[in-house]
């Protein structure tokens, strides 16, 4: 055990902890400010991840390693990943406009926020100054953080624990109900699709050459050529065909036919 950790368990702060704090606290505040200020939602999420990881580090210095790991796994790994996931589902380009639609909202928010921060700091200073922290070492009683927390969790807080687990399951079910969409037609299996394709016959039966094959260009949006030299439009995915930044299938066709 390092001296730092022992002291943290006993409440007093050390130089190591101070170094960690003064290094990471600005990072956390900067990340939080960035979360509020950046336009891109994904950047905001990454900045929030920075804040969360900083907090996880603080938890370790405050003798709460289990909470630190849970913070990383649950918050950073699951919750924030869920955010990113939804962000990507909702749209790749989801930047906020800079124009504030509610009159006076920003000004009032910043003013109130500053006032609140000042009040909180004043309250904390008034309430805590001169207080000597005891540290959690006594509470852990040599069993270690994980065991001590587990014992508390499954004895005094067992009902709260069960209640939160029920809440979590309810939330999961609720999310499923909210986002579930009943398909109107029975979903075709892979087998059925293949049989249908065969029954339909024609040129779609054999696998098409991959995009770019036989082409004079190696981009994925370049359609494949069929053995007779004509292009295979289906070899380029639809969303690439409609993309404005790239040449269209028709353009390539025209190019191939030439003058």
């Amino acid at each position: 055990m390092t001296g730092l950790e022992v002291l943290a368990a006993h409440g007093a702060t050390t130089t190591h902890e101070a170094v960690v704090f003064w290094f990471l606290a600005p990072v956390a505040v900067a990340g939080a400010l960035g979360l509020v200020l950046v336009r891109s939602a994904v950047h905001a999420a990454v900045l929030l991840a920075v804040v969360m990881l900083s907090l996880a580090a603080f938890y370790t210095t405050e003798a709460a390693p289990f909470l630190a790991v849970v913070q990383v796994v649950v918050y950073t790994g699951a919750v924030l990943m869920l955010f990113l996931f939804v962000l990507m589902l909702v749209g790749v380009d989801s930047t906020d406009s800079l124009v504030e639609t509610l009159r006076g909202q920003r000004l009032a928010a910043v003013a109130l926020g500053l006032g609140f921060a000042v009040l909180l700091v004043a309250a904390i200073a008034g309430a805590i100054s001169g207080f000597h922290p005891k540290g959690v070492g006594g509470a852990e009683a040599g069993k270690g953080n994980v065991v001590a927390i587990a014992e508390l969790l499954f004895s005094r807080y067992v009902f709260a624990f069960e209640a939160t687990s029920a809440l979590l399951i309810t939330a999961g079910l609720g999310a499923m109900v909210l986002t579930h969409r009943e398909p109107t037609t029975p979903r075709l299996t892979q087998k059925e699709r293949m049989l249908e394709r065969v029954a339909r016959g024609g040129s779609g039966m054999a696998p098409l050459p991959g995009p770019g094959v036989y082409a004079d260009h190696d981009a994925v949006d370049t359609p494949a050529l069929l053995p007779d030299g004509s292009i295979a439009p289906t070899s380029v995915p639809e969303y690439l065909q409609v993309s404005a930044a790239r040449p269209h299938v028709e353009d390539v066709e025209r190019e191939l036919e030439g003058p």
Partner: protein
Amino acid sequence: MSVNYYLYLSALLFTIGAVGVLVRRNAIVVFMCIELMLNAVNLSLVTFARINGNLDGQIIAFFVMVVAAAEVVIGLAIIMSIFRARRSASVDDANLLKY
């Protein structure tokens, strides 16, 4: 340094999160700001545990995380539903419930 600095930092992060809730329009970012506020509270809870010399603060922080996870799950599901219906994730666009 004093343990109080953790609390000051927590207050600061909480306030920033609150202001973020007020000024951001993207529902998901608003949600993130709420998570920031919860995290700030967790930090102060852990610090309180250290000051008071027991583990209850850590336990409560643990519960906060679980409840936050539940909240995020439902909240994001709602945002998804709203987005499907309205093609917008802006909290200002979901303003039908008014006078």
